[in-house]
């Protein structure tokens, strides 16, 4: 039995140096105690992912020791880690889309029966205990991303692990879902388990964790009890410098209208929406998961084939298709970078120029690699994309850099209206500030921005106006200076504040 003072997990000088010489971890010390929540922070590329991969047995350390309940251990595959009692909730949760919620939750369970007789009852108990209910027989593929996150948490709970490693469990979640995840985390710690929480949300770390470790460039630069640090100290430790955000200049009311959205709707997911955006304006969209935020952006971009209504750019009606939208100067930075924005088989420079390829081509037909590389090189410098070279595959980039590539695509063409769908989800404070700076620089040149972000504080800070959405409809409009987080949450939650815990299944 481990004694009360002995950490459940103790890493000593853990190092990971790849055969090509890249040092991902340079001797990290970390101690996680039973019954606590330990925060792990760091910029993209700081080594968090590598550390998690070592913990869950996906890769092995090249130096240092890992003590698990006092014993030196070394996993040779993920099954070892799981058997020892470490469950990992990855950022991209590996769920089987065609199986039901119930089958996914008990996927790793032993036994021959596809579905144990007591499984429904066990699932009901698990869902009761975190206060979140999903229909158990619905295929996971039909669930929204936040609901899938909850299935992943249930899966970790079902495994009865001693240590649960969570990689960005709330990255794409809106406030109510985040609350549910937070409650689940607290409950796990209270039950005597330990949670290693990887997150970019500093408020989350301060509210939830007992101790924390900040990684930078593969080394632990800060290890402390949470009570001993504040948000500013954390941000500085993560970025290695002070991160300042200044208030932005408000857009002038007489600025030209860039886009008019008139009666835009889509059967089943979007009620008619009418609004306009001015040059240089940032229009924020607030709302919970499934409130129709992404659907609105997709409808504006023409990516929703069943959408009806009118989108006008500079007074000209734009046909409903992404092809026409791009031609009219509308750009969409989608929520799911890997699935919706990036081409892993193409090198970085080709990823950047793809949407406006004809501009870099002789007679619009023959791409000129030199011009393309120049444009991609400019974008890399301007957005501070950290990459080996322009030929790197985008699959290798960290989240923040991949997001910057997705944004860079629209900087090399005549973008008039930029639609940003959760551009800072899962991105560290430094890269986040760079992306937001870039957005401001664009608005200064007259680009209009529609910004969807689950982080209300960020919306209030960056947007001029905020539209609040609920159940596929715009329910309120506020100026950013005339409202606050509480009011936005209340508006987004509707008549029953605190509702939304038992969510409807969101189907496409």
């Amino acid at each position, binding site marked *: 039995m481990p004694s009360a003072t002995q950490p459940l997990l103790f890493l000593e000088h853990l190092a990971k140096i790849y055969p090509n010489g890249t040092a991902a971890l340079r001797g990290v010390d970390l101690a996680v105690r039973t019954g606590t929540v330990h925060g792990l922070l760091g910029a993209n590329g700081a080594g968090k992912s590598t550390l998690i991969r070592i913990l869950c047995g996906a890769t092995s350390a090249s130096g240092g020791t890992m003590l698990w309940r006092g014993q030196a251990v070394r996993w040779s595959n993920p099954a070892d880690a799981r058997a020892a009692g470490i469950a990992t909730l990855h950022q991209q949760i590996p769920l089987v*889309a065609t199986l039901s919620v119930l089958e996914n939750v008990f996927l790793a369970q032993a036994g021959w029966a596809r579905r144990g007789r007591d499984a429904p009852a066990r699932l009901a108990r698990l869902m009761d205990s975190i206060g979140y209910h999903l229909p158990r027989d619905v295929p996971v*593929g039909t669930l929204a991303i936040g609901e899938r996150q909850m299935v992943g948490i249930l899966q970790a709970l079902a495994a009865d692990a001693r240590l649960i490693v969570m990689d960005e469990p709330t990255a794409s979640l809106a406030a109510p879902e985040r609350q549910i995840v937070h409650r689940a985390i607290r409950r796990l710690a209270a039950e005597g388990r330990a949670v290693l929480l990887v997150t970019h949300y500093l408020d989350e770390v301060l509210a939830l964790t007992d101790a924390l470790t900040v990684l930078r460039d593969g080394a632990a630069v800060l290890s402390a009890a949470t009570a001993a640090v504040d948000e500013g100290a954390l941000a500085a430790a993560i970025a290695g410098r002070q991160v300042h955000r200044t208030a932005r200049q408000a857009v002038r009311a007489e600025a030209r209208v860039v886009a008019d959205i008139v009666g835009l709707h889509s059967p089943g997911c979007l009620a008619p929406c009418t609004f306009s955006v001015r040059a240089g304006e940032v229009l924020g969209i607030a709302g919970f998961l499934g409130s129709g935020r992404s659907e609105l952006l997709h409808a504006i*971009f023409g*990516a929703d084939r069943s959408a009806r209504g009118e989108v006008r750019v500079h007074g000209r009606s734009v046909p409903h298709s*992404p*092809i026409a*939208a*791009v*031609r009219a100067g509308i750009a*969409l930075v*989608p929520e*799911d970078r*890997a*699935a*919706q*924005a*990036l*081409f*892993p*088989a*193409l*090198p970085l*420079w*080709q990823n950047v120029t*793809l*949407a406006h*390829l*004809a501009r870099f*081509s002789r007679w*619009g*037909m*023959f*791409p000129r*690699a030199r011009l393309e590389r120049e444009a991609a090189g400019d974008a890399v410098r301007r957005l501070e994309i950290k990459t080996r*070279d*322009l*030929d*790197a*595959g985008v*699959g*290798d980039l960290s989240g923040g850099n991949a997001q910057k590539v997705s944004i860079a*695509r629209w900087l090399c063409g005549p973008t008039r209206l930029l639609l940003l769908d959760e551009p800072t989800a899962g991105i560290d404070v430094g890269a986040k500030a760079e992306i937001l700076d870039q957005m401001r620089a664009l608005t200064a040149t007259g680009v209009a921005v529609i910004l969807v972000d689950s982080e209300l504080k960020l919306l209030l800070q960056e947007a001029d106006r905020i539209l609040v959405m609920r159940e596929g409809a715009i329910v309120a409009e506020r100026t950013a200076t005339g409202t606050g987080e509480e009011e936005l949450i209340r508006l987004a939650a509707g008549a029953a504040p605190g509702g939304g815990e038992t969510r409807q299944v969101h189907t496409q």
Partner: protein
Amino acid sequence: MLGLREAGVYYALALLVAVLTVLTAALGRPSYLSPVNLVNILYQTAPVAIMGVAMTVVLITGNFDLSVASVAALAAAVNILVIDHVGFWPAMMLSLATAGALGLLNGAMVELVGINAFIVTLGTLTASRGLVLVVTNGRSLMVGTPAALTAMTGFESGRTAGLPLPILYMTGFTLAVWLVLHFTTVGRRIYAVGGNPEAARLAGINVRGYKLGAFVLSGLAAGFAGVLYASRFGAMNPTALQGEELTVIAAAILGGTSLFGGAGSVLKTVAGALVLYTLTNGFNVLNLGANYQGLIEGTVLIAAAAIYTVGGRRRAPRGEPSAPPPGAPHVHQAQSQPAVL
């Protein structure tokens, strides 16, 4: 020096030719490397290589076309049926139109209705072959007029610069497709469409158009191969080219084309087709008997796929312009295309 995975099919071809050369010399048979034999292999490869090049484009866009051999047979049947009445070139146009229309049908069913390409083209494979039986009434067809036969011979057996014309057709078509894939915006977008269809759509690329176009190209290439076949023999029986679609697909896979889309090279597909026909030819030259042929070819195919898959793991793409690494299955997020079974 290129890596095994990037250029494996060229090494395989070179190795195969070397082995056969040594064996024929050692056994005292006519030299394998004689110009006559090499030209013969190229000539035999041409129809499959032409279909394979178009198949590669279909595979790059993330689709699949099983129907090519049946469509080629139908085009050949149409050709022989009408050539006595309308003359060589109109007959060729009719053949190409028939095959192109079937390609369009494949593309429309896959892209507009949303049925899985495997199923659609399995259907057109069966139906086209059925149509061949209907129009031939199950009997062999023969060209009747000497004029038509002369025109066909000129088209298929004529030589330019000492090379049989089909070799030039193959070279011309392959080069044209290679140039389009590597040096035009169309080519770049074809790779993008196959690499990540949803991202391509959200980047303002006409995804459906490119995927549909690939099917039409595949149909047209099959039609042309059918005309070559009809012209070679001036006759055909209803089972002509049966099963040849598997050789075409095997050539593309030997060339390292990914079945998941987004990667592939038409030059390597031609090399893959050459490997298969070199094997066939080698069996004939060495008098080894045809019984072992299928076994060896199948083994070669799986070995090639294994090399691509194992060699392709955890490798980042390097910046060869417009040439993403072939072979390794790039697993993508769930495609939005519903599979109707």
